[in-house]
């Protein structure tokens, strides 16, 4: 039935889709390889002699390397903390019956929808009063507000898919709930745990607003650093794009690894 229709409109459409998705990345990478003089040529040039100077300058002279390390520390720590807090909570939501469970679950999920600016205002004042501005731990903690709901949702879903008979058998052998979770359910739930960890990492790594408001120099994140290049008149476009490339590459790799689960994670399971 499809042979009746020519394939070429489909092929053209697919090529357009791929081009539109990929072109900005192509432009980002090529701009990052231009010297300032080439980058400011009007109209822009497509063929030029590439240079890595922007990367060296950004990384080692402007301190982008330190901000990438900060982002990495913060994203990894908040992900680990979300898993430590979220996995047992997910186990309880999937396996135990208790009063207020629905409300609790609702509250966990609602956190996903709250605008960060709502929390950024009070968090800034509190952090300032406690001397916690410009500290890694402040961002690690506040990123829990979006990472914990993600971890709890995905892992609860995963735990529910594990046959209950396995728990039952272990319990008859005298295993405690903690043993059941760690030894029986967790190994089987690893795919969900891994996906939620990837999400948690991506969201934390990508975040700008809290980084902008809650850090200055010591704990400055990479996106906040990229934005701070935007001051003044003669913008260093090559360096800005080099920094952007360094920020984006790790997330793209992670996203491609988790691409099959991406929709499920972004809709918090509404679509599988």
């Amino acid at each position, binding site marked *: 039935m499809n042979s009746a229709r020519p394939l070429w409109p489909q092929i053209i459409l697919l090529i357009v889709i791929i081009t539109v998705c990929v072109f900005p990345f192509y432009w980002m990478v090529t701009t990052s390889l231009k010297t300032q003089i080439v980058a400011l040529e009007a109209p822009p040039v497509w063929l030029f002699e590439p240079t890595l100077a922007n990367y060296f300058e950004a990384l080692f002279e402007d301190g982008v390397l330190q901000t990438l390390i900060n982002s990495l520390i913060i994203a990894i720590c908040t992900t680990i903390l979300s898993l430590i807090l979220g996995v047992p909570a997910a186990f309880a939501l999937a396996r135990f019956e208790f009063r207020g469970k629905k409300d609790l679950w609702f509250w966990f999920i609602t956190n996903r929808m*709250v605008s960060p600016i709502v929390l950024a205002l009070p968090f800034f004042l509190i952090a300032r009063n406690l001397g916690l501005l410009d500290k890694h731990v402040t961002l690690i903690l506040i990123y829990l507000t979006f990472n914990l709901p993600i971890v709890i949702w995905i892992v609860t879903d995963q735990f529910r898919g594990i046959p*209950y008979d396995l728990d039952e058998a272990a319990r008859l052998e005298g295993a405690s709930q903690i043993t059941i979770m760690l030894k029986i359910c967790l190994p089987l739930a690893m795919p969900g745990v891994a996906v939620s960890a990837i999400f948690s990492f991506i969201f934390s790594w990508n975040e700008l*607003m809290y980084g902008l408001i809650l850090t200055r120099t010591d704990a400055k994140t990479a996106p906040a650093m990229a934005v701070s290049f935007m001051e003044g008149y003669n913008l260093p476009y090559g360096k800005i794009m080099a920094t952007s490339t360094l920020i984006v590459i790790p997330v793209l790799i992670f996203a491609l690894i988790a691409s099959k689960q991406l929709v499920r994670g972004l809709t918090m399971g509404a679509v599988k």
Partner: protein
Amino acid sequence: MHRQVSRRTIFAFIGPAVIGLSLVGIAPLLYAVWTSLHFYNLTKLKRVEFIGLENYWKVLTDEVFWQAMGRTFFLLGTALPLQIALGLIIALVLHQPGLTLLKTLGRLSLVLPMATTYAVVGLLGQVMFNQKFGVVNQLLGGANINWIGDPNNAFFMIIFWDVWQWTPFVALVLLAGLTMVPVEIEEAARLETKSNWVLLRFVQLPFLVPGLVAVLILRTADTLKLFDMVFTLTRGGPGSSTEFISLMIQRVGFRGFDQGLASAQAVILLIITIVLAQLYIRVFYKEV
């Protein structure tokens, strides 16, 4: 299937998450409510005083606040239909049989925009839409359009990037819906009709509805949250032409230093969000 376990066991499992999220998610909110009831200006910290609901009254009668809110929903109202229309076309193309390699490539490239750091999208916008040496004007045949400095063009640019970043998301959600249609039903329907429209309307649409509602509500929440991309691209300008609600609150609180007023705005935004979230979860997640 569920088992009764002791309260202590339940608390041991779920308590840490509840306490953790309360400390970072609820305590600050209570503090924001407290701040919103005070005159609290970062440049006049000696003069923090209780003023009751005055900040709320100011917000509710503030034209600028409601304009920002209206602008936010206007963005949603223009970008979302585009995302759904384009997303549906992409999903239908990817759902067709054949051309496996090209389609796999297409699906993978759809993942890229969604994962891109929002701030980087804004920076890319600055570079690509620059009036003088931007590639967009070049591709438009050497046009001399001032994208960032003109209010209407700047708004269009925000729509463009929002559509670029989130159409793939809509497409993949709808594609997931299309693959839920049982093959036998789709084939039986194809024998009955040659019209793709009839097929879409009567056979495939019912399977797309859950995804569409999810998209609607998530895009609503994300538009209310929208900050990073716009901040790096236009900072809300020129004038206030791209100042969406989260940007406005940030400006009042951190560039205008009026934490009291900004907190009142934030509390009102929170109430709107919770109402929408209630709706969201009532409709979708009947689980637990």
